[in-house]
Every structure is written in C-alpha cells, then in structure tokens.
C-alpha cells in the first residue's frame, strides 16, 4: 500500500501536484472564455516540438516551449482572419502531421509516441522537477498579474474595451499562458490528456459556485483529487494514467451537472 509513496515515486507526486494546481487555475479561465479547442490544440502543437527535440537531440523543454508558443501565436493570428475553430483544427492537424514526420524519420518511435501523447507520470526524473516548478511559478505569476483585466475582458468584453483593455491582446496573452501550461504538462500527463485536466475540473467547479475566486479554488481542489487518485490507481493497476484522468474528469463533470440540475427550480433542460 505504502509503496505508492516509494522514493522513485516522489518526483511523480511532486510534479503531478504542481501541474494539477496550475491546470486548475488556468483551466478556470479556459472554460470561462470558451477556449476548450485551443486548450486541446496547443498541446498537440507541443507534440511536434517534443518530436523535433528528439530528432535534433536538444532538451525536450526547448522543443515543447518553442512549438507551443508557436502554435498559440498561429491560432491567435489566423483566427483574426477567419473562423477560429477552422484555424485551430488545421493548425492542430498540421502540427500532429509534422510530429509524425519527425518521429518517422527518427525511426523506431512507437513507445515514444505513446508516452508523449498519453503521458508517463511514473517515469519522471528528478531533473524534471526544477523546470516544472519554475514554469509553474511563471504561469501563476502571469495569471496573478492578468487576473482582473483577463476576467473583465472575458466576462464583459465591451466594458473591458471601454476601460482600455484590448480583447485581442488579452487573447494572445491568454493563449501564451496556455502555451506555458502545455510546456510544463506534456512530459507528465501527455498532450492528449492535459486537456481533460484543464477542462474537467473547472467545468465541474463552475457548477457549484458563481464566484470566480471560489471557483478557482474548487477547480484546483478537484484537479488535485483527480491527479492523486489517478496516480494511485494507475500505480496499483498498472493501467495507463491517462485513462484514469479522463474517466475521473468525466465523473466530476457529471457530478457537477447533476448538482446544477438538482438546485434548479425551473424545469431543467433535457440531457
């Protein structure tokens, strides 16, 4: 039982905890801004970055950082000139295709693809801990600095504009935050499942409270619970952690929906 906390597991616990906190905070804004698709797409851009880093032989964090920032900027730029969802979808598939090329050329890539996409939390080494802490601090600092203008520009864009807050600038800055989150998260839960963490917990939290500060707090708590349970169960069963993160996120979301439906006086919409 206690061997879940064995010394080689310490890094996994520390890094996953940090990731959950930041994902909970950033995820709250993602859900509020309706940016779920971007939260899905930027990590997939990062996949190409990790693949490129593996091909060229540089530190994966550099590849992840470069490509997720590039993807975020591309989405922001292209969506000013056309439909955002189309731009996001095309950028996403292009990046994945590029990633598959990098890995194909490198040859022998099956397991690496799997761990990049679905995560390898049990294999986190101690030299991944410090960069994660630094990136997390940067990300939380960014959210702290942008908190009020970002909230205002998200909820009341017109009022924000009247107060001198550019919605476009906020969009780019927020996509930048997502890129930062991605860079620190990909090595831990993989590109495909960061998304569950960023969307599931805040979506559930939002069902229980309307106040932003409480919703953020609750979202962090739910994200932490999700990750901790997922690590423990993945360790005991040997099944991939991504499956448990996805399943628990869905359960918390359903719980939130049930709670909302219960508290509603007017007849709830069919679902």
């Amino acid at each position, binding site marked *: 039982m206690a061997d879940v906390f064995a010394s080689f597991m310490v890094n996994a616990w520390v890094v996953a905890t940090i990731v959950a906190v930041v994902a909970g905070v950033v995820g709250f804004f993602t859900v509020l801004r309706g940016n779920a698709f971007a939260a899905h797409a930027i990590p997939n851009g990062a996949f190409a970055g990790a693949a490129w880093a593996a091909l060229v032989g540089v530190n994966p964090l550099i590849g992840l950082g470069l490509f997720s920032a590039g993807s975020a900027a591309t989405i922001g730029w292209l969506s000013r000139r056309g439909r955002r969802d189309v731009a996001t979808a095309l950028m996403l*598939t292009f990046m994945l295709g590029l990633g598959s090329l990098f890995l194909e050329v490198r040859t022998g890539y099956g397991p690496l693809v799997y761990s990049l996409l679905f995560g390898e939390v049990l294999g986190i080494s101690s030299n991944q801990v410090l960069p994660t802490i630094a990136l997390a601090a940067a990300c939380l600092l960014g959210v702290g600095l942008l908190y009020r203008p970002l909230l205002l520009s998200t909820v009341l864009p017109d009022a924000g504009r009247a107060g001198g807050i550019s919605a476009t600038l906020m969009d780019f800055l927020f996509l930048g935050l997502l890129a930062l989150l991605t860079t620190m998260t990909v090595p831990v839960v993989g590109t495909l499942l960061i998304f569950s963490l960023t969307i599931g917990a805040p979506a559930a939290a939002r069902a229980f409270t309307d106040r932003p500060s409480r919703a953020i707090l609750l979202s962090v708590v739910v994200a932490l619970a999700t990750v901790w349970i997922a690590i423990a169960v993945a360790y005991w069963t040997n099944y991939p952690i991504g499956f448990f993160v996805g399943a628990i996120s869905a359960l918390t979301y359903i719980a939130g929906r049930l709670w909302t439906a219960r508290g509603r006086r007017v007849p709830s919409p069919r679902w």
Partner: protein
Amino acid sequence: MTVSGALFAPGFFSSGPVHTALALGGVVAIVCGIVGVFTVIRGQAFAGEALSDIGAAGGSASFLASVSPVWGFLAASLAAAAAMEMIGVQRARGRDLATGIVLGTSLGLAALFLYLDSTLRSTTGTTVSVLFGSMFALSSSLIPAVVSLSVVSAGLVCLIQRPLMLSSMNPDLAAVRGVRVRLLGIAYLAALAVAVALAALTIGAILGTALLVGPAATALRITRRPGLAMLTAAGLGVLAVVIGVVLAYDSFLWPGHGWPVSFFVVTLVFLFYLVFGLPGSRRSSQREQGGG
C-alpha cells in the same frame, strides 16, 4: 529522364497499395468535402475534431477484438455523437464543454485500449497506425464498406441540404418555417460521424479533421454558393490526397525513407487554406455581411 519519370518513382502505377490508397483516399476526400462544408458553416470544427479523436478509441478497440477497423471507428464516432447530442451540443453555450468532456473521456479510453493492444496482443505499431494512419497498409477488402458508407453519409447530407442550410444560417427562421431544427442537427451529426470515421480510417484518427475542415473552409473562401463549395472542397480534398500519395511514394527515395502519407495530406490541406484563405480579412468580412 522523362517528366513522368521525374514525378513518379518507379513502380508507382503498378503498385497495389498505391491503387488502394488512391481509391480509398479519393472516396473519403469527396465525402469529407461534401459533409465538411456544413461543418464549417455550422461552426462544428471542434465537434469534428472530437469525433475524429474519439475514433482512436474505436480503432484501437477493434484491433483488440480483431474486427475490421472500419466498424471500430464507425461505432465509436456514432456513440460519441449521440453522447454529445445528449449532454447538449445543440446549445451554443455548453457546446464547447460537452464536446471537450466527451473528447477527454474517449482519449482516456484510447490510452487504455492502446495499452492493452500492446500488452495483451503484443502488436507493435498499433498506436501509430490508429492515430496517424498508414494509407499504404490499407487492405483493398475495405473498399466495399468504405464506398457504401460514403454513399450513405454524402447522400444524407445532399438529401437534407436545403433545410440544413437554412437551419444552419438562421435556426429561428427555419423553426418558424416548420423545419425540425433539432432533428436536422441530429441527422447531420450522424452524417458527420460517418464521414469522420472514414477520414480517421484513412489518414489517421488524430489527423482526420484536416480532410473534413480544411478543403471545405478553403472552398468557402473561394465561393459562397453551397453546391459549388461542396464540389470545390471535394476537388481540393482529392487533390491533396493524390499529391500526398505521390510524394509519399517518391519519398522512399529521400533521406528518412518513406515519409508518412498523412503528413503530406495535412500539410497540403493547411497550405491550401493559407494560400486561398488568408489574403484580406477585410474581403471575407464583407462577404460575411453580404452573403447568406
């Protein structure tokens, strides 16, 4: 060296896998073009992306159960479309989230199935072929199933084209005119799920949306007329597939040996969009106001 000798590597025209890839890819590109125009107009690119990714769960499960991947992809996207409909894709507000939650859960399932594939059946390469496709490895026995599913999906969309266009552009007006908007939405989602499953089968589960959304979005920048846009999108899709197959075949002679077909297809689709889609945000916004 002749022109054709320079363009096509030796053996291109006599290769069985190339014929299958061209046939399947071409059919799928046509269906995606037809169905995709409405995906773009209705703003459902995220739903298409989610359905495609979800196909990964079905595709990997089908390897586990040793059934043909067509049915795995198809069952998974239809089930996911039903789930998305149930938890509320029809309301714009919760749509993003409902799609996201279904997507996240299915990716979790895909992770599990792929893990089981590699441990229980000790197949290598399932992850790669399910997620990124392997067009040259497609079996020609898939052709009848793919063609009939294509006819169903494209036929359904063509059949409901007029009321669907009205209800996509202006749901309230459509409802007043007696169009059953919800039912149409469900019918369209089903057609979308079939098209996406086919795309996932050919160019890979996580790349399928490219063929669905890219040519359609590009075509809608070239023309605003729906029928013409469908034709243009189908044409662009086929073009991307054909050039992609040719380049991938040629690439066996390049460094790296055998670049993935899917890479060429998604890159071409993206390039088409950048070339035809980008110039002038002003022009498109004028059209947006003038058109419809």
